[in-house]
C-alpha cells in the first residue's frame, strides 16, 4: 500500500471540459470511499482501498490500470455483482450499499448491462434467446422479449443470425450479441470489462465503434481496459493503481473508431 496520504480521488470536472455535447447534471454512478477486500484463509486481500468516483449520464468513461490493480473488482462492485466491504455507492439515484441479494438482482436486471471479456453467452440457446435472457428475469412475456431481442439484434447488425448458436459466431459477432443483451433492458449504464480483450485489433475497433455510436445515442458506458489506445475512445480515463484512483484524465479529443457499424443510427 502506498504511504502517501489521501488518494487523489476524483473531483467533479467542470462541465465544459467533459464534452461538446450538453451533459445533464445527474450522476449515474457516484461512489464514496468504496472498499473491497476478498476474504481468504489467513486474512483479507484488499482489492479496492477507498475509491470515490462518479459517472454522469451519457458519459463514456474508461478505467485503466495494470493487471491486478482492481479494475475488475471495481467494475463488479459497480455492477452489483459484488457487495462493497466499505464505503457507499449510489447507482442511478439508488443507494445500493444496503440492498439484499434479491434487491441487487433486480438492480442488476434493471440498471446494469454487463459486457464481459469472454462474451459469456449460453452455448445451448440461440442468439435471440441469449439477447432476451435479461427480460426473462424482468418477467416480460415471451413474445415481447423475443420481439425486443430481435429489434436489438437488427440494430447491432445481426438481424439475419437470430437462430444461430453462439458457437457459430465469430468473436466480434459474439461480443456484439453480448452488447445487444446488455442493451435489451435499456439499462442506466453499460459496464464492459476488457470487452476487446479476446478480439483481434480490427474487431476490437468495431466494438469501439459500436460503443461510440451507442455513446452518441446517449448511452452511459464504463469500460475497463489495460490498453491506453482503447481507453482513449472514452471521454475520461480513471487510472487505478493498487486499488486506488491514481489519476483522472480528461481525453481532450477522444479517438474515433472509423468504421461505423451498420444500423446503429436507429438507436439515435
Amino acid at each position, binding site marked *: 500500500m502506498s504511504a502517501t496520504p489521501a488518494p487523489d480521488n476524483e473531483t467533479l470536472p467542470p462541465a465544459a471540459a467533459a464534452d461538446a455535447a450538453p451533459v445533464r447534471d445527474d450522476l449515474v454512478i457516484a461512489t464514496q470511499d468504496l472498499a473491497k477486500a476478498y476474504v481468504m484463509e489467513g486474512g483479507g486481500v484488499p482489492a479496492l482501498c477507498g475509491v470515490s468516483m462518479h459517472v454522469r449520464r451519457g458519459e463514456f468513461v474508461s478505467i485503466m490500470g495494470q493487471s491486478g490493480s482492481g479494475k475488475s473488482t471495481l467494475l463488479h462492485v459497480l455492477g452489483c*455483482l459484488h457487495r462493497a466491504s466499505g464505503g457507499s455507492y449510489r447507482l442511478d439515484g439508488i443507494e445500493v450499499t444496503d440492498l439484499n*441479494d*434479491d434487491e441487487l*438482482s433486480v438492480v442488476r436486471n434493471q440498471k446494469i448491462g454487463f459486457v464481459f471479456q469472454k462474451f*459469456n453467452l449460453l452455448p445451448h440457446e440461440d442468439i435471440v434467446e441469449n439477447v432476451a*435472457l435479461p427480460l426473462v*428475469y424482468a*418477467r416480460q412475456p415471451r413474445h415481447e422479449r423475443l420481439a425486443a431481442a430481435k429489434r436489438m439484434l437488427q440494430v447491432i447488425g445481426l438481424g439475419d443470425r437470430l437462430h444461430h448458436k453462439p458457437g457459430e459466431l465469430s468473436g466480434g459477432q459474439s461480443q456484439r450479441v453480448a452488447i445487444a443483451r446488455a442493451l435489451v433492458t435499456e439499462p442506466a449504464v453499460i459496464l464492459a470489462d476488457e470487452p476487446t480483450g479476446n478480439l483481434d485489433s480490427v474487431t476490437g475497433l468495431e466494438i469501439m465503434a459500436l460503443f461510440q455510436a451507442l455513446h452518441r445515442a446517449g448511452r452511459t458506458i464504463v469500460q475497463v481496459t489495460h490498453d491506453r489506445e482503447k481507453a482513449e475512445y472514452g471521454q475520461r480515463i480513471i487510472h487505478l493503481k493498487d486499488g486506488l484512483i491514481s489519476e483522472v484524465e480528461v481525453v481532450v479529443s477522444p479517438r474515433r473508431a472509423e468504421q461505423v457499424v451498420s444500423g446503429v443510427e436507429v438507436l439515435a
Partner: protein
Amino acid sequence: MIEWGNAVRIGLMGLAVHKFRAALSMLGIIFGVASVVAVIAVSEGARGEVLKQLAAMGVNNIMVTGLDWRSGGSETRDIKKKARLGSNGLTLREAEAALAHCRLLVTYAPLRKVQASIRSGETPVSADVVGTTPAFLGVMGYRLREGRWFLPPDEKEARRVCVIEDTIRQECFKLESPLGRTLVIDHEPYEVVGVLESKEASSDQKYEVIDIKQLNRRCYIPLAATLARMTQEPLSDQVSEIIFQCRSSRDVHAAAAVLNRCFDAWHNMESWRPDDKDFKVRVAQDLVKQTEASQRIFNYVMGCSAGISLVVGGIGIMNIMLANVTERRREIGIRRAVGATQHDILRQFLFESLSICLLGGLMGCLLGVGFTWLVQYWTQWQTVLAWWSMFVALAVSLLDGVAFGTYPAWQAGKLDPIEALRYE
C-alpha cells in the same frame, strides 16, 4: 417467477444436453414407479379375487362338511381312521338342532352329493348330482338364468325335478330351452325346471370351493329325492355338507365356534385333533385369508423394492443434479449477472430434477403395465390396473424429485455470481 412455458423449455433443454446421463439417473425412478404400479395392480386384483371368493361362498355362511375315514388328504393315519370309523356323518337332525341352539344362525341348506349316472336321452352327461332344499338358492345367493328353483312341494313330495347349471344346459340342450325336458338320473326321468346363471371362475384354483373342472356342472335335485331313491338306507337323513347362514358377517366366527362345540359334543370328538375329526367347520372369510396372506407377502416384497428403487433413484437424481450444477456454474453466473435471483436459479434446477422424475415416472408407468402383465402371466394371479395407481406413482416420483432435487438446486442458487462466472 418465470412463466411455466419457459421453465419447461429450460428444464427439457437441460435434459437434452445430457440425454444418456439423464436416462441412467432415471432408472431408479423408472423401476420404483413400475413396482408401485405393479403392486397396486396385484393388490387390487387380489381384492377382486377375495370378493369373488366371498361371493362364491357367501360372506355370511359357515360350511360344515362331513368327513369319512377315507377323506382328508394324503396321509390317512390310523388315528384318523379310528376317529372317524363309527361316524354317522352329518344329519338333518343335527342341522335342525344347531339352528335351534344357536340364535346367530338364520337358516341352513343341506347338500347331499350322490354318485349317480346321468343321461340326456342316450348321451351320458358329466355332472355332479347334488340333493338340496328350497333354502339353498337364497343361502348361496345364486341367481336363476331361467325357469324356477325348488318349491316346498318338490321337497315334500320328493318330486323328480332338477335344476341344472349352465354348462350342462349348453352341452345337452344347446340353443333350445331346457325347461320341461328330461334328464335321466339313475334310470329315473327328472324334469328340468330351472337353469342357474353361470358362476364366474375364480382364477385361484387352490382355494376354490368348487372344483374348477366341475364348475357349473352341477345338477340339483330335491334332497328328499336323493334320500328316498339313492341310498341304501332309505330312512337315513345323512348329508355331506350343511351350509349355515348367519344374520350378519360379524357373527360368523362366534357362530362357527358354537357349531364346533355342538358337533364335537354330538360326535364325541372333543378329544381329537381338529384334523382328525369327522367334520370340518369352515368360514368363507377364513378361506379367503389364505389368498390374502400369499398376496400380502408379494405386496411387501414389491413394496420394499419400490421403496428402495425410489430412494436409490432419488440419490441418482441428486447425483446427476449436483454434477449438473457444477458443470453449469458458468450458466448460473450468466443468469445471475443479468438479473436472476437465487430463487430463480433454485427454481430452474428444481424444475429440471422434477422434469427428470416426471419423465422417469411416465416411463415407469409404462414399465409397470409390463410388470403387471408379467406377474399375471407367471403367477396366474388376477391383476387390476387401477388408473389411480398411475397418479400415485407420478406423485411419488415428483416427491422424489423435490426430496432429492432441492439440495442441488439450493446449492446452485447460493453460488456467488462472480465465482460461478470464473468457472471454465
